[in-house]
């Protein structure tokens, strides 16, 4: 009864393209058809190499990973990591590793490339490294620990990225480029000069037109590089990043056809000279070209997946246009950026030496089509230019208007309307405007749904802004109102309402409704706008939320300053700053729970939750808690919840700072701060990170020199690692940075938007956020700090305020005309405690 065995498909290589191929195969149901085995030489599962430099700015291997071993297991794909294939035996149809031989029926080479190390005598010396894998980065980091200077050989895209990484490791950094300018492939001499100025302004020395002849022992440093003119440069660390070479050894040894300068020759279906074997990604040579970008690799993966399933989706070459941000400098190149491949092409150039921006257009001889473009210092027009280029859209009468500064005669950005259906929106996942429209026609109603179904903008993310504009436009044109109004009562976003409240000094909901509400309502507001406005008023003026003017606005939990549970009773959570609590206070919590018949549970935020409190018991419970020195924990509010901490240097033998002390100071500083959503902090006393700070909105991790600040993490339904925001801050700088960050979040986020989602929707992303908060690019830093100080200075425990005011306690009656408790609240016991029946 043997079913015939499925043919064996082997994929060699688990990089970005190799993994994409697996995803394509899974999506197309190839696991029904093949037994699939993947060999990866590295010990890591496929990770995002495009964002590799972030490994030095706080991201770890897990967060760079593109998938999980569970994904592979779930689809029955055998994943063999840290097992390099050393030979292909085409006669027997087997691949050979140091573990043994595995037969194949079909084979895919996705072995990628290696950095090219120029054949310079001395290039094998210790401290001469490359920049390609996580292991390479670990080696660079280790070598940097004992180095003060570093040199990158190669001034191209990857070289500048590596230079940025060395700078980030606090090395005095230099870039040595053989060509007369940086990024010779992408920019011309004018652009290269501007780029050099900008890179040098960041403290990186730039040496162009230099060929390294030898690397020998240095005098002051570990190495000395000797150039063609006998000039020398001394350095402790050298990183080679002078281009890539396809990893075609397996193909070469097994006799597959290679190109003259390497690369496995493939046809449009990604087949090599042996029809049982395919190749994709940077190892593959298509029509004489190696494609060193991820998007063409993904397109090859698609073509290969189709080929393996007898489909036909040929690879047709790929556009090599790129948009980069290198060490904070925008560089963009589109099509024939140098204008040397298009006969009769004409060029427009614009150089702003003050703002340090350079833009160049290459247009066809008749001036009607864009054939190439080059940008340095500002990529804001990249998306528009790319659409003109890729879709052969007719240029405006005066093409120069496309690159002139806005405000003058500048042409407006190309609207989504002007794009044909074939316009490529996301080149990583090959999504066209037509695909996006089809998704919307099929029922997608927002950006998230479009992303989920097309995967557009989930690769490099470069098309995020364009995609959003397109989706909004298409939804609108289908009559789906992309209404940014918060609700029917206000034609404003939360951010606009915040600005109105602050600028006009409006202190009540009623005044806001009278001045800015929509006239065709009863002016009562609703359960959307009232809590949102309540939160804005609290963020701005911090008046007690139980004041008569504010109490009808509050969400149920805020109204009674406790968390309503499913049977109408409440849970009570006193603040336990930093999770530190005295034995005396613990005893009080136990006594209160006994006295009022409460169920107790320790929370994830290092506090104790008391469940099952009846409405009419809340004031008495709080009377006792306040008497014992507790204050409200705001577990009910869209506000600071807890600052979780590990025990830190006071007890722990690894701790380098007093994390509990810092957690307590932070908790006292920001307690009571109301925000668009709840806010959680974590403080760890060392890099072991026991407080899990990187899953919090604000994460603080101790270093030898102070504190590293992480922002916008989240646990919950959609976990997100917090991103490293600033390093080695002292206490004061830490408070100041968090003040600014939180106030900026409060100002600009949507209602009920956690920092993680806010961050993901923030145009300009983390870089923009750093500019605003750390460099004060909007000039609002001091104002944000002042606003925060106002909130800090006006803090008052809401429960202490309420129980001293009989008028406010009036509400804490189950029935206004009867003192009996609600007879419908019935409890039972389980594991020695009460719970709702």
């Amino acid at each position: 009864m043997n079913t015939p065995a499925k043919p064996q498909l082997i994929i060699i290589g688990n990089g970005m393209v190799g993994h994409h191929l697996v995803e394509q195969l899974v999506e197309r149901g190839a696991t029904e058809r093949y037994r699939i085995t993947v060999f990866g030489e590295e010990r890591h599962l496929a990770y995002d190499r495009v964002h590799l430099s972030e490994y030095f700015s706080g991201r770890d291997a897990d967060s760079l990973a593109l998938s999980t071993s569970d994904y592979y297991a779930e689809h029955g794909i055998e994943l063999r990591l840290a097992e390099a294939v050393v030979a292909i035996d085409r006669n027997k149809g087997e691949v050979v590793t140091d573990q043994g031989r595995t037969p194949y029926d079909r084979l895919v080479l996705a072995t990628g490339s290696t950095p090219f190390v120029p054949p310079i005598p001395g290039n094998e010396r210790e401290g001469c490294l490359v920049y390609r894998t996580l292991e390479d980065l670990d080696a660079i980091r280790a070598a940097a620990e004992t180095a003060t200077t570093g040199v990158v050989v190669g001034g191209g895209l990857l070289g500048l990225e590596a230079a940025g990484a060395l700078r980030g490791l606090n090395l005095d950094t230099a870039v040595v480029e053989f060509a007369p300018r940086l990024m010779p492939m992408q920019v011309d001499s004018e652009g290269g000069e501007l780029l050099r100025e900008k890179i040098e302004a960041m403290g990186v020395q730039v040496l162009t037109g230099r060929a390294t002849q030898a690397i020998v022992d240095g005098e002051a440093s570990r190495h000395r590089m000797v150039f063609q003119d006998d000039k020398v440069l001394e350095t402790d660390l050298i990183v080679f990043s002078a281009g890539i070479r396809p990893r075609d050894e397996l193909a070469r040894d097994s006799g597959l056809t290679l190109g003259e300068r390497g690369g496995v020759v493939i046809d449009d279906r990604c087949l090599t000279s042996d029809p049982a074997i395919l190749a994709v990604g940077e190892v593959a040579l298509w029509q004489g070209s190696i494609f060193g970008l991820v998007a063409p690799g993904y397109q090859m993966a698609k073509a290969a997946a189709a080929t393996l399933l007898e489909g036909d989706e040929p690879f047709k070459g790929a556009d090599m246009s790129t948009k980069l941000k290198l060490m904070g400098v925008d560089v963009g190149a589109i099509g024939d950026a140098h204008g040397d491949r298009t006969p009769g092409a004409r060029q427009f150039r614009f150089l702003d030496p003050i703002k340090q921006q350079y833009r160049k257009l290459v247009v066809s001889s008749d001036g009607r089509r864009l054939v190439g473009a080059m940008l340095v210092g500002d990529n804001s027009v990249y998306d528009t230019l790319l659409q003109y280029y890729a879709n052969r859209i007719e240029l405006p009468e005066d093409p120069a208007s496309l690159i002139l500064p806005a405000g003058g005669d500048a042409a407006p950005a190309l609207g989504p309307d002007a794009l044909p259906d074939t316009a490529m929106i996301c080149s990583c996942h090959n999504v066209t405007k037509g695909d996006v429209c089809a998704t919307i026609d099929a029922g997608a109603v927002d950006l998230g749904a479009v992303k989920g179904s097309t995967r557009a903008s989930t690769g490099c993310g470069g098309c995020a802004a364009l995609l959003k504009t397109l989706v909004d436009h298409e939804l609108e044109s289908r009559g789906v109102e992309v209404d940014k109004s918060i609700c029917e009562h206000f034609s404003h976003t939360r951010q606009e309402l915040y600005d109105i409240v602050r600028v006009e000094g409006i202190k009540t909901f009623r005044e806001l409704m009278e001045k800015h509400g929509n006239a065709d309502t009863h002016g009562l507001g609703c359960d959307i706008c009232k809590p949102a406005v309540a939160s804005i008023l609290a963020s701005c003026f911090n008046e007690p939320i139980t004041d008569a003017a504010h109490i009808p606005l509050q969400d149920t939990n805020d109204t009674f300053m406790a968390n309503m549970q499913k049977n109408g009773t409440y849970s009570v959570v006193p603040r336990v700053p930093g999770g530190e609590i005295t034995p005396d206070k613990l005893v009080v919590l136990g006594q209160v729970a006994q006295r009022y018949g409460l169920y107790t549970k320790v929370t994830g935020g290092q506090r104790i939750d008391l469940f099952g409190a009846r409405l009419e018991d809340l004031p008495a419970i709080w009377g006792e808690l306040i008497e014992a020195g507790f204050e409200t924990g705001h577990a009910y509010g869209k506000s600071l919840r807890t600052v979780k901490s590990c025990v830190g240097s006071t007890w722990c033998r690894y701790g380098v700072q007093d994390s509990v002390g810092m957690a307590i100071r932070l908790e006292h500083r920001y307690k009571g701060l109301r925000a668009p959503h709840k806010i959680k902090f974590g403080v760890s006393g060392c890099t072991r990170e026991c407080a899990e700070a990187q899953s919090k909105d604000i994460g603080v991790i101790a270093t030898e020199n102070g504190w590293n600040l992480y922002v916008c993490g989240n646990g919950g339904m959609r976990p997100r690692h917090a991103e490293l925001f600033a390093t080695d801050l002292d206490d004061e700088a830490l408070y100041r940075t968090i003040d600014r960050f939180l106030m900026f979040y409060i100002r600009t986020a949507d209602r009920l938007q956690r920092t993680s989602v806010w961050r993901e929707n923030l145009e300009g992303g983390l870089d923009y956020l750093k500019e605003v908060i750390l460099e004060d690019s909007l000039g609002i830093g001091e104002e944000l700090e002042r606003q925060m100080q106002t909130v800090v200075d006006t803090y008052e425990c809401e429960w202490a305020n309420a129980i001293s005011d009989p008028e406010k306690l009036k509400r804490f009656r189950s029935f206004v005309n009867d003192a009996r408790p609600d007879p419908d609240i019935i409890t039972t016991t389980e594991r020695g405690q009460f719970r709702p029946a």
Partner: protein
Amino acid sequence: MTTANAAAKTMTQTWQPLCTRADLVPYSGVAAWVETPEGPAQVAVFYLPGHAQELYAIDHHDPFSSANVIARGIIGDLKGQPVVASPIYKQHFRLEDGQCLEDEAVTLRTWQVSFKGDEVWIEA
């Protein structure tokens, strides 16, 4: 059930004092016990000072959670009609007639209420 209620209303309902103006919370609700011909009931009373109709009385019992919590919901107006949002699962109920906006099949009981001086009276 609905017809029985309606019949009961017409036959035996009487106006009775419920609470005082000082017991109410402006633009919000309180709960009270009321004697009805079918027995005691929990009623949520909402007070909208300055509006055409200032008082509403509606079931305090939330049929979706089976908890007695409606008086603790947020008051608002949706498409021109005053509503209360259940504090548990957020369904909206019209104050005028108790109709649930999210589920046509669900309606809360409502009662007539009005001020007599500073007293609140209910017809139940």
